[in-house]
């Protein structure tokens, strides 16, 4: 149930990215694994099982199902929103008693999807050349 495949497939719907983009075949950065571990470590088993069960049993339109059965659910919604934010910023927001908000790792920070989505780069981690900012960026294509 709690497998990385299920995690990636759910994450694909939540983030709007293809599974293969979230976990490339040759994933040198290992962020998918790191997020999977973070989620597993920080979430009670029964809630996780409920999350994946719900996801795997969605019938019909997957996007609509994820919205109605997961995001709009009192318990699962919070967790799903956390998963989105984890992918987009590399942050785990504390959900359960005793948990703090934290940046998962430097690699998680620099791989945050929100920056690419803006045609930008994580602050403090630019791969551009001098002067690139003078022109509009190549924006990611949303298929």
């Amino acid at each position, binding site marked *: 149930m709690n497998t990385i495949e299920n995690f990636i497939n759910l994450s694909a*719907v*939540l*983030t*709007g990215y293809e599974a293969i983009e979230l976990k490339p075949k040759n994933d040198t950065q290992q962020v998918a694994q790191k997020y999977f571990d973070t989620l597993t470590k920080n979430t009670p088993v029964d809630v996780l099982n409920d999350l994946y069960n719900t996801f795997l049993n969605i019938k019909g339109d997957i*996007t609509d199902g*994820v*919205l109605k059965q997961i*995001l*709009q659910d009192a318990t699962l*919604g919070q967790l*799903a*929103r956390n998963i*989105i*934010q984890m992918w*987009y*910023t590399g*942050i785990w927001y504390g959900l359960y008693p005793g948990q703090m*908000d*934290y*940046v998962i*790792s*430097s690699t998680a*920070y*620099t791989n945050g999807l*929100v*920056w690419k*989505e*803006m*045609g*930008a*780069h994580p*602050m*403090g*981690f*630019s*791969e*551009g*050349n*001098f*002067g*690139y*900012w*003078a*022109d*509009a*960026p190549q*924006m*990611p294509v*949303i298929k």
Partner: protein
Amino acid sequence: MSNSTKKYDVVIVGAGFAGNVMALELAKAGKKVLMVEGGDPFKSDNREVFMQNFFLAMAKTPESPYPQNYNSPRPSVLDIQNITPNSPQGQNGTNPVKDIATNGYFIEKGPMAFGSTYERVAGGTSWHWLGTCLRLLPSDFRMKTEFGVGVDWPISYDDLSAYYNKAEFEIGVSADVEEQNIHGVTFTPGYKYPMQSLPPTVLDKKFSEKLNGITLDGSIVKVTGTPAGRNSTSNKIDGKIYNNGRRLCQGNTNCTPICPIQAKYDATVTLAKALNTGNVDIMYQTVAYNILIDETTKKVTGIAYKQYETKLGPVTGEGVVTATSYIIAAHAVETAKLLLMSKNKTMPNGIANSSGQVGKNLMDHPVKLSWGLMPESTYPFRGPLSTSGIETTRDGEFRKKRAAYRIEIGNEGWNWTMGAPYSTLTDLVNKNTFGKALRQEIASNFTRQFRIGFLVEQLPGDGYIVPSAIATDNLGLPRPEVHYDLSDYTKAGFEAAVEATNTIFGLLGAKESIESSNPPASRPGSFTYNNKTYFSNGAGHVMGTHRMGATPQDSVTDANMKTWDHDNLYLVGCGTFPTTGTANPSLTMMALAYKATEALLKTL
């Protein structure tokens, strides 16, 4: 480390922005210098470690890369609180020192919260400065004469011009002379900045297109490239291509809190050169706490220090350093605090304080931020944090009645103002926006975020600092007690900034954010003026606390930054500024440090 046997010409307290320049210049002239630096040592892997701290910090504040050091503590923007008669700051002093991190280093007494911070590590606050290197305007030196407010400086723009050239060369400033000669700023004939102006961003170009040529605050607006202490395309100077050996700016959009590749100048550049001369020794983790005086000659005879080995550890050494002359360059707040702490029988009010002006005239450039959405994408979070601004508003007859400001154009969206993109992402996700719709929202909306900042001038007399009588740091030394306020002169500048915001946003076709136009009254930094609530941010430009002047009666130092009271004691840093003008202060501070060095060298 014991330096008791070696003879030094000069002791410098503080290896920050100002101190390092003086160390290098004195060393180049063959003088033996001993630096006393309270913070942790400067090491080659500092930047890497600091970058990791930054990546992992939840709140990416200016301080976030640099660990708090309880033996050499610094304020943090996270500690800024509202001040009420019973606010916790007052009780802070009785708490154990470990609480500094949560309750703040400053003991704030108000009435206004003080929003500015500094860093106490080798290299000083330059680690997280933005790098803006504007010159002051000629009229900024003559506020009393020109506008009947504040005081005049004991020097003029022309007196500083050649020193500005030197400072710009050492920092490696990228700018364009043609663009900078506004409001009477002149340059040495044939002068070129070491490097060309940085390319403007997409947003900058939009500003130029929509605003150039309009009249604002009585002047015709011209959006110009902001002189920057970061590497751009080199100019040829005296037949040689300028080369400071550092990398070209890659647009990491992170100049504050830390440039990952040192494309931005910081004072460790100059410190490394100073140490390489062989004429400079430095004692790290050594906090100066008492300036000793010969009661008859009034000369400084030594500076007492305490040492430690770890950030929370005990005192591990004490002693006195001596030299022929002494320079205090410990930052505007700490320098004033040190002078006031060094009381003795003949100087009951503290060292260099016969005028009573030490610690007084605490000033900043309180910032009015205005933010919103552009009608189309202008792509923030790319390039240096700021590349252009509007400087034409910095002077005019209106300065008789209200403060001037410069307008900084930010390239970091709503990052400073709202904590974007994190906050804006959370807002979206909380509305259950997800999947491709989320991606589309980010692409079309986040890319329209922008902000401008009005850096408003202050006049002397608004605030002051004293060493706290009750609160101490881990070494047992008093923490700064800060009394800060804005006068109506400055508040009227905020009022004008709101009008200017309306004009600018109107011409850009931009929509101002609700939080920008209606700041909540309850936030630290908020104030009410003519029935309207304003919010002011700190700029980190702390000035005025040991001002220079024409007479010993109303100033702490002369025009060479030598204290009137002690023949061999100099004070350098932004604390020397009699008034603030609207230029970010460090370039002027560095020019003044060259001036002070020249004067000091004549006496050695």
